[in-house]
């Protein structure tokens, strides 16, 4: 909760600064004394992980920009120069490339956490929408960043995605030409993508600031979904959550370090080590793994414009989620039916991701040929994507709106402290008959 500040300047300098620019007060209120629910589990550490990853990507990115040359004739070679000649260039490059994947891994965990615990529900709607904006900016940044090494996948990925805009009626081609700065993806495109790739992360940082501000007004959600009732329910952010977040970050860094030092090629498509050639298309154009679910949705719709609209509405539906979910209970811990649908949703997303990496007409179960519907065999990845995509949209547009009205949730605890202080063997805490009203 954003209560009044409890900070008291101790030294003369602190008092002097406090009356002129209360930065110390701001820091103490936001990161040190901020009352945080004491029952947050490890799913809550990903916010801190994300902040660290953003800083990390910005630092490694700025350093890489000191050596990278954003020109079609030099880009590929400049990246190789970074890998070979720049002191520790290989380290910084691998950290930046792997960091992008780790950034998306963390953001997906963070988003799924919010979906499960109802962190998007009132009064945190704006917080959620700001998060969706950050996600969009991240995707734009990652897309442009991948183009920069100017490998085969960089180039042809850019061609495919920028061509999508041509699907828009009337203005599509004009916008695409404007985006390209020419009649195809070429040097002007590369140069502007570099400029924008440098700019966007700072915009992300700004929106993250708003995101944290919007969080601090109502305060953090917690696994029970029940509002904080008293000081008993909270602990100060420092040292309780600074150290816990630090531990989680350290574990995350172990995974990060594993990829950077022992499997850097695992996330980098081999085709991207071939210099871009506009006249030769790779056999299998695949975006980075974090775009695969949307790529699957794009290819699931047999119509070009439909695919583009489908892909963008998959993200668009997130923005209106707070108004789609009718449940009065926040956390799915107490919504057993919703929980099941949620896990199916996670599965659907994984299936979409898997399908995105496959050729659409390849067989899902090898050797089994069934009958053809809408031009594709039912035993193909495109049909599997259609089923998964259908569930994806149904979850938001059908399941969540209906379930809130029809399900019987479990009794929600009276307060955060109640389930903790009760004996572990006893019945669910509080034994409150009716679900907690949103308050």
């Amino acid at each position, binding site marked *: 909760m954003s209560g009044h500040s409890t900070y008291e300047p101790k030294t003369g300098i602190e008092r002097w600064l406090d009356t002129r620019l209360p930065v110390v007060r701001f820091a103490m209120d936001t990161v040190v004394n901020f009352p945080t629910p004491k029952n947050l589990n490890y799913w809550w550490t990903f916010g801190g992980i994300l902040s660290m990853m953003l800083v990390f990507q910005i*630092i490694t990115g700025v*350093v890489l920009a*000191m*050596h990278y040359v954003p020109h079609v004739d030099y880009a590929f070679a400049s990246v190789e*120069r970074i890998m*070979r*000649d*720049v*002191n*520790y*260039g290989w*380290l*910084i490059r691998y950290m930046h490339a792997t960091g992008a994947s780790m950034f998306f891994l963390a953001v997906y965990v963070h988003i799924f956490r919010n979906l499960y615990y109802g962190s998007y529900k009132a009064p945190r709607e704006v917080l959620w929408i700001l998060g969706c904006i950050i996600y969009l900016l991240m995707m734009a940044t990652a897309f442009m960043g991948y183009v920069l090494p100017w490998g085969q996948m960089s180039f042809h990925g850019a061609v495919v995605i920028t061509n999508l805009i041509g699907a828009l009626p009337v203005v599509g081609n004009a916008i695409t030409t404007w985006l390209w700065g020419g009649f195809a993806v070429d040097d002007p495109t590369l140069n502007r993508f570099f400029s924008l790739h440098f700019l966007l992360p700072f915009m992300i940082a700004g929106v993250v600031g708003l995101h944290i501000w919007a969080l601090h007004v109502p305060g953090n959600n917690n696994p029970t979904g029940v509002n904080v009732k008293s*000081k*008993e329910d909270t*602990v*100060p952010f420092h*040292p*309780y959550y600074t*150290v816990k977040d*630090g531990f989680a970050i350290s574990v995350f860094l172990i995974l990060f370090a594993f990829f950077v030092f022992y499997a850097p090629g695992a996330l980098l498509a081999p085709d991207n080590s071939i210099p871009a050639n506009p006249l030769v298309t790779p056999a299998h154009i695949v975006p980075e793994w974090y775009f695969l679910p949307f790529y699957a949705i794009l290819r699931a719709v047999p119509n070009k414009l439909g695919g583009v609209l489908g892909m963008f509405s998959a993200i668009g539906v997130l923005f209106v989620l707070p108004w789609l979910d009718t449940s009065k209970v926040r956390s799915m811990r107490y919504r057993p039916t919703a929980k099941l649908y949620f896990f199916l949703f996670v599965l659907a997303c994984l299936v979409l991701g898997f399908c995105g990496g496959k050729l659409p007409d390849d067989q899902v179960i090898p050797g089994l040929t069934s009958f053809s519907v809408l031009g594709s065999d039912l035993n193909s990845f495109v049909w599997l994507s259609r089923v998964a995509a259908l569930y994806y949209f149904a979850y938001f547009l059908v399941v969540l709106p209906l379930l809130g009205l029809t399900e019987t949730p479990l009794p929600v605890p009276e307060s955060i402290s109640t389930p*903790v*202080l*009760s*004996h*572990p063997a006893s019945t669910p805490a509080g034994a409150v008959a009716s679900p907690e009203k949103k308050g």
Partner: protein
Amino acid sequence: MADTVAGDRPDPHVSGEDPSRRDFIHIVTGAAAVGAVAALAWPFIDQMNPAGDTLALASIEFDLSKVASGQQVVVKWRGKPLFVRNRTEKEIAEAVKDDHADMRDPQTDAERHKPGKAQWLILIGTCTHLGCVPTFGGGEYGGWFCPCHGSVYDTAGRIRKGPAPKNLVVPDYAFLSDTKVKVG
């Protein structure tokens, strides 16, 4: 993970007591964190140091047989001009004659070339005033003349007239053979 301590010990946070700030474990962890940041900071600092390809051009070899007597060749070395001058007997004598003359940056001629190789003068061709490239043979001493602000160098590259504070710099070099020299 959940330490359920139902009531047997008062919550130190509630009673206002700071949870074990000075514990040894926290000091060690803090020190480890600082160490990690320092270790990680070094690559980011070092990457701005000259890269492999720049260092590769840090030293060059030069074939002196290309320079005729009384002439100079200008080569690019480390991004700057390098003067390689084959001095005539007359030029050497004039330089030695002025060894103890009144000059801003006193140096003998012998200090500015390798022993036994007085004819070869290798200097960085950047005026020590503000960095222009002096012209060969100009000025009353027949050494170099800097057109930017009028510095005059003698045949040993020493500053004799004009605003430059120091003599033309002699770089680190060594003779690999009588006709080959390695600079840098």
